[in-house]
């Protein structure tokens, strides 16, 4: 099976692999997928006080397309506001990486991971504000 050049590039040189401190107030963590399905993505964001994503990291268990989708996602959301990051759709990721139909779920997972990380950060911020 042939992967696109962009997938291979992200697989060979993944951007932003790593972890942020899950417990930190300014970090949001999204963990999506399931080991039984063969894909798990962890995507983390560090958000500034004015709502800008300053840093993003990922770790992914999954095929080359899953790794590339999450790598690309971190690249795209860095420097964006939370609201802008939320507008990233799986179709944009799939199109950019030229994913074949059987790999579309990888891009869906990447979109879910972004949303989950943002939701986690917002839940923390709301809880902090309520204190």
């Amino acid at each position, binding site marked *: *099976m042939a*992967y696109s050049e962009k997938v*291979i590039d992200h*697989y060979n040189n*993944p951007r932003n*692999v790593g*972890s942020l401190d899950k417990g930190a107030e300014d970090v949001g963590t999204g*963990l*999506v*997928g*399931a*080991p*039984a*399905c*063969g*894909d*798990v*993505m*962890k995507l983390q964001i560090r958000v500034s006080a004015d709502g800008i994503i300053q840093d993003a990291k990922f*770790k*992914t*268990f*999954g*095929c*080359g397309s*899953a*790794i590339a989708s999450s790598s690309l996602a971190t690249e795209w959301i860095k420097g964006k506001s939370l609201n802008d990051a939320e507008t990233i759709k799986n179709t944009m990721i799939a199109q950019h990486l030229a994913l074949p139909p*059987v790999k579309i*779920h990888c891009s*869906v*997972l990447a979109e879910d991971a972004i949303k989950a990380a943002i939701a986690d950060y917002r839940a923390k911020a709301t809880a902090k504000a309520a204190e």
Partner: protein
Amino acid sequence: MSMQASVRETPERKDAAPGRNRPERPIYLDYQATTPMDRRVLDVMIPYFTEKFGNPHSRSHAYGWEAEEAVEKARAQIAHIIGADEREVIFTSGATESNNLAIKGVAQFYKDKRNHIVTLVTEHKCVLDTCRHLQEEGFAVTYLPVKQDGLVDLAELERAITEKTVLVSIMAVNNEIGVVQPLAEIGKLCRKKGAYFHTDCAQAVGKIPLDVEAMNIDLMSISGHKLYGPKGIGALYVRRRPRIRLQAMINGGGQERGMRSGTLPTPLCVGLGEACAIAEREMPEEAKRLTRLRDRFHGAIKEKLPEVYLNGSLENRIPGNLNLSFAYVEGESLILGINDLSVSSGSACTSASLEPSYVLRALGVDEAMAHTSLRIGFGRFTTEDEVDYAVKDIVEHVTKLRDMSPLWEMFQDGVDLKSIKWAAH
């Protein structure tokens, strides 16, 4: 034919010394998928494509006679490696056809008396699909589970065979995990209970000793391209005493004693015969050599990587197979990384379904672990240098992918992955 002895090599074998950079062509470690043809096999085939082109069924001239003689010699070579009589061997296009003919042929012929078939859930797709097809026609099929080591439970098999059972079809060697079923015990049981015993030996012939008499085998499927012979040829052993009857699937000129019509492809028959003769001659030494290579590979991997699990029995296994789960690393991504090696994945993530291997699932390997498995096959042209290169490549990429794996990180942090509520998707 003086060049015959000098050409035992493949293009790959000298390219992959560990000190060098990348091999020119990927190192082939997928010998359960197919094998390269042995040059010695090709050499004996070539004249039958050109000057010795006769139809082996032509009875009126020398061209026919010489082709017939070659085909009959090949038939005897095939019979010899399984302890059969040459009149019990018929040629087919491959193991898929042999399996179809054995199972459908017996089922159809005896359907008025008995209509039940017993097989294993881990059989090759062509056996399972043939059985499903017969179910649609009204036959009853029992798909027996296997034990955790991949082997049939003989007590369970005995219970499954009834007076309505016409055929038990159990493979000798599994194509994914390489485990060897207890053929002699199965044969004995079938004989005792009065059911015919068919065994798919595509992965077994030339790898382990086989004897249709000692093992009470009634029908055996054989493949050419799994034992360094040509693709497009196979054989079916059909017992004569007591005589097993089959309904033919291909009708025509009545060749192969009416069980499989069609002009025999002389060069392919000759190739299969020679492949059997070479395998029979070299099996004892080759089995030792492959066991040594496999153990060297397995030992080095286990020494250098934690959390690697073997799927299927090690004791009851052909020398040239390993099926390993590299926990926390998805198999397809690993294959993408180790692109200097040609291996197969136990994960079926490449297909539209996200289901991992049904064979691994049948052993009770959980789905997450099944997604991390690779099948590594060693064979006649595998060298020690290739094995060492493969170890180095796999260790490097498993380590890299584990550093990238959230599951590995959680495992390192002592998180029980089963305690997490994963969202299924």
